[in-house]
């Protein structure tokens, strides 16, 4: 059989690729037979975790601070000292910024200035998950919009997609900016996105999220798909609003507004 140089090179190339691929694919997997991966026994189960923020219970600056600090301290959230590089998982802002478009010039002054507690809404239909090219952010079965910092390539598409500004990017190395690292939890690295994870590592130990625990009842947390959960009972008894609900992302963080007593005629407050 005679072949010319071109044919020979083509066949040689294809054979090399074939043999190489075959060798790689045929390497035996190195798994021990008996090992398994399980959830912790205390793992709190839910179909969709949700939170209700009762604004009536946030009164002093300390109320906000303790909730924010609880989260940022245990999760090693860095403080770079400037708004450009800022990383925040939970923070506060006023009504017109938390609910843009819903404010009115003539609403009660107290409501205008009172800060709201803001965090990732763990939407049921999250646009951030839809756009992530690597599934570094993904929806868990319990409804948490989770973040995998190992896989994140730092493209920041999720930050463009989030309508709520809930995500932060590590524009610098975070480690030097963490004052008192918590040795039981990792930090993140430069060049990845991070955000609130509804304290999934605490839920795995049977504990409530840190902000909920520190809030002294101001934050309620539970499974919104369970009609007997605390959050469902609260939602059934109180009027709540969500941020930008008209966008269809189905946020899971609900707010009970603190409506001033003097506004309601008849002297009955909504407290």
């Amino acid at each position: 059989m005679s072949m010319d140089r071109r044919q020979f090179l083509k066949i040689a190339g294809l054979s090399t690729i074939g043999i190489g691929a075959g060798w790689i694919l045929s390497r035996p997997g190195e798994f021990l037979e008996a090992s398994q991966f399980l959830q912790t026994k205390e793992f709190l189960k839910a179909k969709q975790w949700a939170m209700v923020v009762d604004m009536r219970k946030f009164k002093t600056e300390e109320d906000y601070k303790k909730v924010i600090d609880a989260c940022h301290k245990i999760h090693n959230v860095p403080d770079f000292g400037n708004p450009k590089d800022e990383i925040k998982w939970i923070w506060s802002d006023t009504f017109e910024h938390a609910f843009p478009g819903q404010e009115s010039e003539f609403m009660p002054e107290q409501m205008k200035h009172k800060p709201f507690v803001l965090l990732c809404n763990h939407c049921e239909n999250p646009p951030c998950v839809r756009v992530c090219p690597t599934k570094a952010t993904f929806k868990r079965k319990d409804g948490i919009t989770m973040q995998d910092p190992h896989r994140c390539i730092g493209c920041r598409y999720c930050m463009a997609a989030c309508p709520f500004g809930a995500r932060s990017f590590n524009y610098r190395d975070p480690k030097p900016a963490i004052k008192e690292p918590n040795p039981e939890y990792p930090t993140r690295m430069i060049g990845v996105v991070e955000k609130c994870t509804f304290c999934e590592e605490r839920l795995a130990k049977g504990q409530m999220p840190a902000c909920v625990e520190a809030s002294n009842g101001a934050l309620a947390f539970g499974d919104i798909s369970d009609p007997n959960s605390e959050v469902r009972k609260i939602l059934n008894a109180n009027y709540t609003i969500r941020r930008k609900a008209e966008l269809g992302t189905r946020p899971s963080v609900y707010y009970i507004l603190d409506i001033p007593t003097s506004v309601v005629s008849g002297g009955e407050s909504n407290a």
Partner: protein
Amino acid sequence: MYDGGKILIGIIIFVLFVTFPFYNNAGKVSAKPEPKLDTPVIQQLAEKKCVEPKEFMKAEHMQLLDDWRDSAIREGKRVYINSEGKEFRISLQNTCMNCHSNKKEFCDKCHNYVAVKPYCWTCHIEPKEKQL
């Protein structure tokens, strides 16, 4: 051949360049790495066993850690049942480094020898070396 002189000089330079690591390190002897296991936590263990047998861990700890991190973060499963049925909490900082709290005398010994820089520590917090 055409430009034979230039080609030969180029080949000689290339060979010198590519064999540099060998003749540069000739004669230098690097001691075999001996990772130390004498941490307070290990000394207090009744049974001095790691998550899996030593030979397995030596060869496969990288794969194990990779499986662990996907299990914990992506699947929310933080319990590992090893080949002997014993339970471990999946956590680099709180399980592995709890026993092996001497990163410099343990992890770094082999990693430095083979010039490997695992990037775990860009995020995960190194244990504070406990005084013995």
